[in-house]
């Protein structure tokens, strides 16, 4: 990876050598490129180094928020603008990897439909007018004024809000958190509302989840997945995970044993586990889980869902106490002990009581997130909205003003586990926006202090004299070291048993966070809308998932429409069928049905939030409007996603490649290859979005996907594994076959093989016969049926501003040209250049493909197959190793490691 550089300390700069000048140029170029608003020191660039500096990437450490919590990232900056998000190996919520939301944050920075300036209705206003309104809101003590934010994870913002509340005693602060991180559950411990459970995966051998989804979308996804995958790899055969859940999630899919259990049944499972641990009777699967827990006392944990009733949560807490589980009980990252913070329910009551006449919404969208309960109470309330776009709340507000995108902002942010990180901008703000810190100062009637200064104030107060050195260190590493770990929450007091849940008619409605848009806040991001849901492969919308038995009973097939009715609301959705879903449940996804999410996100899917916990389902015809990138999930006996058992990890190669007529071709070192561990892949899609960002892959839009056209170079195929009643994941990039079938059929030699073993697609030679894709048995190639990247782009995605997001090292392909995964050849070539400049061979691990870097599960290994000591060569020697469609004789360089079937499965239950 290129060396880290932080923006230099512009206060100093006595001795200026070429490297320092280079760094200054990079920092100053940002100001230059966007038209300065504040003048920074700039030096003219007279002494250009031989190799030209401005093209090289410079990495800046920052943090990106998801549902308010930080993931540390390193953002690559080219010519003064960010072009790619990488993980920060030093930050515990990233450990070098990313999730789809971090990768896609780049696109939302350059979104042409972000609001560009403050407006009152349709009339643009100035920021001073906004400042006036804000100041008046808190004049005379702020009585009758409420501040509504999302989850606040910034120590600086918390400090500012505390000062604001001190200054305006009548002001109340509410925060609404539509998406909680995994394992943040309600608690009845005295003085606390919610507790963040934080497992120490290095100490765990057995994990039982009860509806929890730590591997699922959210700010903890990367850290949890990392922990899980390392535990699984380091203690293969010992580490097991058991999942009890209604609707299949990523956690349940990757669990060694999974039992479909309806939401009403989960509390019973919790109590049964407790009883079984004491040696009582329990159903087979619960007993097996209890045995596993008992065997691993001190190294076992039970992870609950936040939706469990209090009695069940207490039972789980008791279980964890008895097991001495390595499970920390942390204060949630948004909890500031000395700042009075109320939740959305309190806001609705306050509105009811008429105590709120003025509401300032800062970085939240309650009109969508809270829905009718909120909008019904807005009569007579003056609303001011500050956010990234003219969303549903902005349209109801009398005034809206834009906030900085995190990539343009100075701030600081806590991760789910409490680690603090600085947020530094990669580019001057693109529009007339302000930082949330500056807005809170406006609420205090003060103005003029820049966000950077406000943030530095926080840390200067904490560090005193050591501030300069420690701040530089924080900016350089992306982590604020020694920030005190969050306090822990006392243990759960015992609770009475819950009343048994009324089973009732209809179906139990389980609404999960979306892997694409989370709670809807990312609906306007085209990369995310086109990112397929991991298990159903649906894009551009949400669906109602049913178990196969229920679908049969209702007489509906995949793609048909159904209407869900609950709590007076009716929602029409297409049907998907998931093996392993509990009978009597219907699974839906939150975050859809938005009306003001720009041209990308408006009108996509349906809002399921109003439906409530039980719904009736009625079939509604055959046109469900289900758009998917994959429609067939069976393997049909073709041994595509293979499994081995932990006892006997050797794969029986029934389909070995036959001898070849052709003489073998000599390959030099380095000769690239890739091994993907399907046992580790959790289906999170980070690789797909990372690849899209790195390689300038266009979005095609729902109509094109419905026609069967996709552009993702790496895709994650989901296949049913009938023995385990789950869907497994298999990422498929280009196989880079040594005997590639795509090459001899290209009439113009646009598909050829290079000396490093890569199958190279030559864009400017391609005439577009598409024979290569016709002959590829893996169908990894992607054709530009239209000029998706430019003149025929979907919606506004051809806008000029979005060109800034492109990676300058990768060509943008035009109409009529075939493209495909290149093993990130631009990174390979950059490594060659660096190595030849320094007169050395390429080091092991020096070339990291985008997908490999992003993967939190560390499923992808890439390197030199001609070097027997390389990681990829060792992976190829693993007994679990196999090639896809080996019998066709293509000799792929991208190969797989089979899934490991749990040893527990062979035990008698």
């Amino acid at each position, binding site marked *: 990876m290129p060396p880290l550089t932080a923006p230099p300390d512009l206060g100093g700069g006595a001795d200026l050598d070429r490297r320092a000048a280079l760094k200054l140029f990079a920092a100053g170029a940002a100001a230059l490129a966007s038209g300065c608003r504040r003048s920074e020191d700039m030096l003219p660039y007279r002494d250009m180094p031989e190799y030209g500096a401005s093209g090289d990437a410079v990495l800046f450490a920052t943090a990106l928020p998801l549902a308010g919590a930080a993931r540390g990232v390193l953002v690559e900056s080219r010519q003064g603008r960010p072009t790619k998000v990488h993980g920060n190996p030093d930050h515990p919520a990233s450990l070098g990897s990313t999730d789809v939301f971090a990768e896609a944050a780049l696109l939302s920075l350059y979104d042409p439909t972000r609001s560009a300036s403050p407006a009152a209705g349709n009339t643009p206003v100035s920021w001073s007018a906004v400042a006036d309104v804000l100041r008046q809101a808190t004049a005379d003590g702020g009585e009758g004024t409420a501040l509504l934010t999302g989850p606040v994870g910034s120590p600086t913002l918390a400090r500012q809000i505390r000062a604001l509340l001190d200054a305006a005693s009548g002001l109340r602060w509410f925060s609404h958190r539509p998406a909680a991180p995994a394992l943040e559950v309600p608690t009845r411990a005295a003085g606390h509302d919610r507790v963040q459970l934080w497992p120490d995966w290095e100490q765990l051998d057995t994990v039982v989840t009860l509806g929890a989804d730590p591997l699922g979308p959210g700010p903890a996804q990367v850290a949890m997945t990392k922990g899980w995958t390392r535990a699984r790899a380091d203690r293969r055969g010992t580490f097991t995970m058991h999942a009890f859940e209604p609707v299949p999630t990523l956690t349940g899919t990757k669990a060694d044993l999974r039992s479909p259990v309806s939401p009403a049944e989960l509390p019973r499972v919790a109590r049964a586990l407790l009883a079984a641990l004491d040696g009582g009777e329990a159903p087979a699967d619960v007993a097996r889980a209890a045995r596993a827990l008992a065997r691993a006392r001190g190294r076992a944990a039970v992870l609950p869902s936040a939706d469990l009733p209090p009695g069940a949560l207490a039972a789980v807490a008791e279980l964890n106490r008895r097991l001495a589980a390595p499970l920390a009980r942390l204060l949630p990252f948004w909890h500031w002990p000395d700042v009075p913070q109320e939740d959305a329910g309190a806001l609705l009551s306050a509105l009811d009581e008429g105590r709120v006449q003025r509401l300032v919404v800062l970085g939240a969208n309650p009109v969508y997130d809270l829905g009718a309960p909120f909008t019904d109470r807005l009569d007579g309330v003056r609303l001011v909205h500050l956010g990234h776009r003219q969303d549903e709340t902005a349209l109801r507000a009398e005034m809206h003003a834009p906030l900085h995108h995190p990539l343009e902002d100075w701030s600081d942010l806590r991760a789910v586990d409490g680690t603090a990180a600085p947020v530094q901008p990669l580019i001057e703000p693109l529009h007339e926006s302000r930082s949330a810190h500056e807005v809170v100062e406006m609420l205090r009637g003060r103005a003029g202090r820049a966000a950077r200064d406000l943030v530095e104030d926080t840390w200067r107060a904490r560090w005193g004299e050591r501030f300069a050195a420690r701040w530089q260190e924080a900016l350089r590493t992306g982590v604020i070291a020694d920030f005190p770990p969050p306090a822990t929450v006392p243990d759960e007091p015992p609770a009475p048993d819950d009343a048994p849940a009324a089973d009732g008619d209809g179906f139990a409605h389980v609404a999960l966070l979306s892997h694409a848009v989370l709670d809807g806040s990312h609906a306007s991001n085209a990369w995310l809308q086109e990112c397929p849901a991991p298990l159903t492969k649906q894009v551009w919308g949400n669906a109602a998932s049913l178990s196969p038995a229920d679908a049969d009973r209702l007489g509906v097939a995949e793609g048909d429409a159904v209407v869900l009715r609950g709590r007076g609301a009716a929602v029409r959705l297409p049907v998907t069928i998931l093996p392993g879903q509990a009978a009597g449940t219907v699974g839906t996804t939150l975050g859809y049905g938005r009306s003001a999410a720009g041209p990308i996100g408006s009108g996509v899917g349906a809002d399921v939030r109003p439906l409530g916990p039980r719904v009736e389902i009625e079939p509604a015809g055959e046109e469900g409007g289900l758009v998917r990138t994959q429609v067939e999930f069976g393997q049909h006996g073709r041994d595509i996603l293979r499994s081995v058992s932990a006892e006997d990890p050797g794969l029986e190669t029934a389909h070995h490649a036959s001898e070849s007529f052709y003489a073998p071709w000599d390959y030099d070192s380095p000769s690239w290859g890739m091994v993907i561990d399907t046992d580790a892949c959790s289906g999170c899609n980070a690789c797909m979005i990372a690849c899209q960002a790195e390689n300038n892959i266009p979005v095609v839009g729902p109509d094109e996907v419905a026609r069967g056209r996709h552009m993702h170079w790496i895709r994650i195929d989901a296949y049913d594994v009938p023995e385990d009643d789950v869907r497994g994941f298999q990422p498929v990039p280009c196989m880079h076959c040594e005997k*590639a079938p795509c090459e001899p059929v290209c009439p113009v030699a646009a598909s050829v093989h290079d000396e490093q073993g890569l199958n190279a697609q030559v864009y400017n030679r391609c005439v577009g016969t598409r024979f290569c894709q016709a002959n590829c048995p893996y169908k990894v190639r992607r054709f530009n049926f239209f000029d998706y990247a430019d003149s025929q782009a979907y919606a506004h995605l051809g806008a000029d501003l979005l060109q800034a997001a492109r990676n300058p090292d990768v060509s943008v392909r035009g109409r009529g040209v075939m493209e495909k995964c290149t093993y990130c050849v631009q990174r390979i070539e950059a490594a060659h250049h660096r190595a030849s400049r320094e007169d050395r061979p390429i080091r092991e691990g020096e070339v990291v493909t985008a997908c490999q870097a992003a993967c939190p599960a560390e499923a992808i290994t890439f390197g030199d197959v001609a070097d027997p000591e390389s990681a990829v060569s060792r992976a190829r020697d693993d007994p679990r190793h196999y090639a896809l469609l080996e019998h066709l004789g293509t000799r792929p360089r991208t190969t797989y490691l089979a899934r490991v079937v749990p040893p527990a499965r062979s035990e008698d239950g």
Partner: protein
Amino acid sequence: MTARLLLVFTDTASLVDAARTLRTEGVDGMDAHTPWRVADLEPVLEPPAHGVRRTMLIAGLAAAAGVFLLQTWSAVWFYPLNVGGRPLFSWPAFGFATFETGILGAAAGGFVAMIRACGLPRLHDPFFDTAETEGASDDRFFLSLPREGAPDRLRLSRLDGLARIVEVGR
């Protein structure tokens, strides 16, 4: 063009007999004009060899060899590429273009040879100066003798099936 006498017949049998008769009487340089090919005439009139088929063979082989060598040279020496790990000298694959080009070469070479051997194009031939020869493409059969040294009219008029005698050329 020298003057020629055209003997007009109304059926092919008479034409062939007349030609045979005149030939045995030692008349040389005879030609015939018929609306269709009369195979029986050829052994009688013995036109000189034309070599069209030989030309086709040579042209075909040359074209085939040329294309095969082009493929071999470009794939093995001029711009060798690793295409699917296949051998550079992929002679089975080269065979297709070779064969097709060979046939095309033979066809084109033969076409040119045929046109030239027929002395075509020759849009203004004394043969067309009179409308009487229009039947040569319809249903009349013409036997053509050089007027110099032709048997006299009397002898000619005794030929079976003779309809008319026409003079062309000067």
